C-alpha cells in the first residue's frame, strides 16, 4: 500500500468489492467492541484512512506478544490492518539488521515527527542500562529518544504496561513499565501475558478509524476491552452464584464444569476480554479449558500469591479458611460486579 493511498483506495486497487469492504468493517467494528450501529461510521472513516507510521520497540520481553499477534485468528483482517499501517521498525519482523535497521527507525522518526505511533513490548531495565541493549543503545535511551516525537504509545503486554515478569520480586534488572519513564505522552496499555491479538489489532483499528486513542480505564487500558472483569463475563458464573465449585482439577465438579474460584481463579479481580473474544480462533479461553484465570492482565500478577490459591485465601491468610470464605467470595463477586459496572460507566463518561 502506497503512503498516499487511503485504505479504501488500496482495497479497491486490490479488487476488494464495496461489499467485501462492508464485511471488513463489520468485523473490524466487532473487534473494536463497537456497537453494530457504528459500522456506517467505521466504513466512512476507514475508507479515507491514511497509512500511519508505526515503530515497534521490543525490550525485556519473550516475543510472546509478537507471537500472539502473528498467530492471530483473523489473518485476513490482521493482514489488511497491517497493510494499512507502515510498520517501519520491528526488529523481530524486519529484514534489515544492524545499522540499516537503526537508520530505518531514525528516518521514520524524522519523516513522521509528531505523527507516528510507538508500540513497545517488554519492560525497561532501570537498574543497570547494560542489562538490555539494542545496537549498543540502552532500552531506556532508545525509549526516550523514540517517544519524544511520537503521537501516542501503545504498551503491548503486561511487561510494557506494568513491568510484568521482569518486574517480579526480586526484580533483578530494576524493570519498570513504559509509563514509569514516559509521562508526557498518551499511553495505551494493552496488558496481558500475552495480550489477546484482536485487542492489539482493535486498538490499531481504532487509531486508523478515528485518529484518536480509545477511552481508557484508570490503568490506561482500552475500556472497550478491559471495562469488565473475566468473572462478570464468564459462562461459569451461574455455578459461582449457586455455590457449586470444583475442589480439585479431577473431581466431579471439575468434570461438570463448575466454578474454578476455589482452585485459584482470579477472574473476579481480572479485567480483560478473554471470556468473550477467546483464544485460538475463538475456540476457548483458560477457564473454558478447565484452568482458572491467572490474572495476567493485572499489575504484579506474578507476585499476588500462588496461582492456585483462591482469592479468599489471600484475603483471609490461609486456604484453611476457605469454607468460611465462601460467603466472602460471593460478596467479593457481587462487589466486583458493582465495581465493574461503575468502571464501565466511568469509562463511558455516564457515571453520575
Amino acid at each position, binding site marked *: 500500500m502506497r503512503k498516499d493511498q487511503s485504505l479504501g483506495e488500496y482495497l479497491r486497487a486490490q479488487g476488494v468489492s*464495496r461489499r467485501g469492504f*462492508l*464485511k471488513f468493517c463489520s468485523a473490524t467494528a466487532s473487534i473494536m467492541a463497537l456497537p453494530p450501529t457504528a459500522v456506517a461510521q467505521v466504513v466512512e472513516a476507514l475508507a479515507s484512512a491514511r497509512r500511519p507510521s508505526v515503530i515497534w520497540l521490543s525490550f525485556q520481553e519473550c516475543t510472546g506478544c509478537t507471537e500472539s499477534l502473528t498467530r492471530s*485468528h483473523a489473518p485476513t483482517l490482521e493482514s489488511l490492518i497491517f497493510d494499512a499501517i507502515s510498520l517501519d521498525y520491528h526488529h523481530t519482523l524486519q529484514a534489515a539488521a544492524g545499522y540499516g535497521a537503526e537508520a530505518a527507525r531514525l528516518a521514520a522518526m524524522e519523516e513522521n515527527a509528531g505523527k507516528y505511533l510507538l508500540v513497545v513490548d517488554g519492560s525497561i531495565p532501570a537498574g543497570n542500562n547494560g542489562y538490555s541493549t539494542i545496537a549498543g543503545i540502552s532500552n531506556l535511551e532508545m525509549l526516550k529518544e523514540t517517544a519524544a516525537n511520537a503521537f501516542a504509545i501503545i504498551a503491548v503486554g503486561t511487561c510494557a504496561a506494568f513491568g510484568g515478569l521482569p518486574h517480579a520480586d526480586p526484580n533483578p534488572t530494576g524493570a519498570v513499565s513504559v509509563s514509569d519513564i514516559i509521562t508526557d505522552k498518551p499511553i495505551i496499555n494493552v496488558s496481558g501475558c500475552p495480550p489477546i491479538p484482536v485487542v492489539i489489532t482493535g486498538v490499531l483499528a481504532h487509531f486508523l478509524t478515528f485518529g484518536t486513542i480509545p477511552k481508557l480505564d484508570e490503568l490506561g487500558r482500552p475500556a472497550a476491552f478491559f471495562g469488565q472483569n473475566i468473572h462478570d463475563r464468564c459462562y461459569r458464573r451461574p455455578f459461582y452464584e449457586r455455590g457449586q465449585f470444583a475442589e480439585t482439577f479431577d473431581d466431579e465438579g471439575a468434570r461438570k464444569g463448575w466454578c474454578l474460584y476455589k482452585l485459584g481463579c482470579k477472574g473476579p479481580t481480572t479485567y480483560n476480554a478473554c471470556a468473550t473474544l477467546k483464544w485460538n480462533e475463538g475456540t476457548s479461553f483458560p477457564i473454558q479449558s478447565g484452568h482458572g484465570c491467572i490474572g495476567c492482565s493485572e499489575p504484579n500478577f506474578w507476585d499476588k500469591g500462588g496461582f492456585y490459591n483462591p482469592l479468599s485465601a489471600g484475603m483471609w491468610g490461609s486456604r484453611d479458611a476457605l469454607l468460611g470464605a465462601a460467603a466472602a467470595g460471593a460478596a467479593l463477586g457481587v462487589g466486583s460486579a458493582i465495581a465493574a459496572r461503575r468502571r464501565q460507566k466511568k469509562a463511558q463518561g455516564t457515571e453520575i
Partner: protein
Amino acid sequence: MSTLDVIPVNTEILTGNVEPLLHEVRHALRRLANGGDGTVIDLQSLPLAPGEEGRIEELLGKGEVRAELDALGPSVVQETSYPGVWLVTHRNTEQAVVGRFIEVTHMPELLKSQQADIERGISRLEHQLEN
C-alpha cells in the same frame, strides 16, 4: 486413554443468556414490524457457554432464504424461521469465524448490490462492449 473424546467433560453448561437474547430479538422484530429501525446483535460480544450458540441457531431455525457470498472469505446470510431475523456469519480466507451477527431487518445490507460496485460494473461492461 486413546482419544480426547473419552475424557468425561460436561459441555452442557448454560449461562441463561439464550432466552433473554431471544426476547431481545422479539422486541427488535416487533419494532421492525411497527416501522422502526432494524437491529444488529453481535453474538461475539455475549458470554455464551460452549454449545449455546448452536442452541440459539437451533431455536431460530432456518427460513426460506440462504445466501452465500465470497468477499474476503466466505459469508453465509441465512434467514431464520422467523421472517425478518437473519443469522449472518463471516469467515476469513482461513475459514475461521471473524464475525457472527443476528440482524433483524427486511434485507441485510450486505446482500444489496452496492453503488460503488454497480458503477465499477458499468465501466467493465462498457469496456467489454467497446472491445
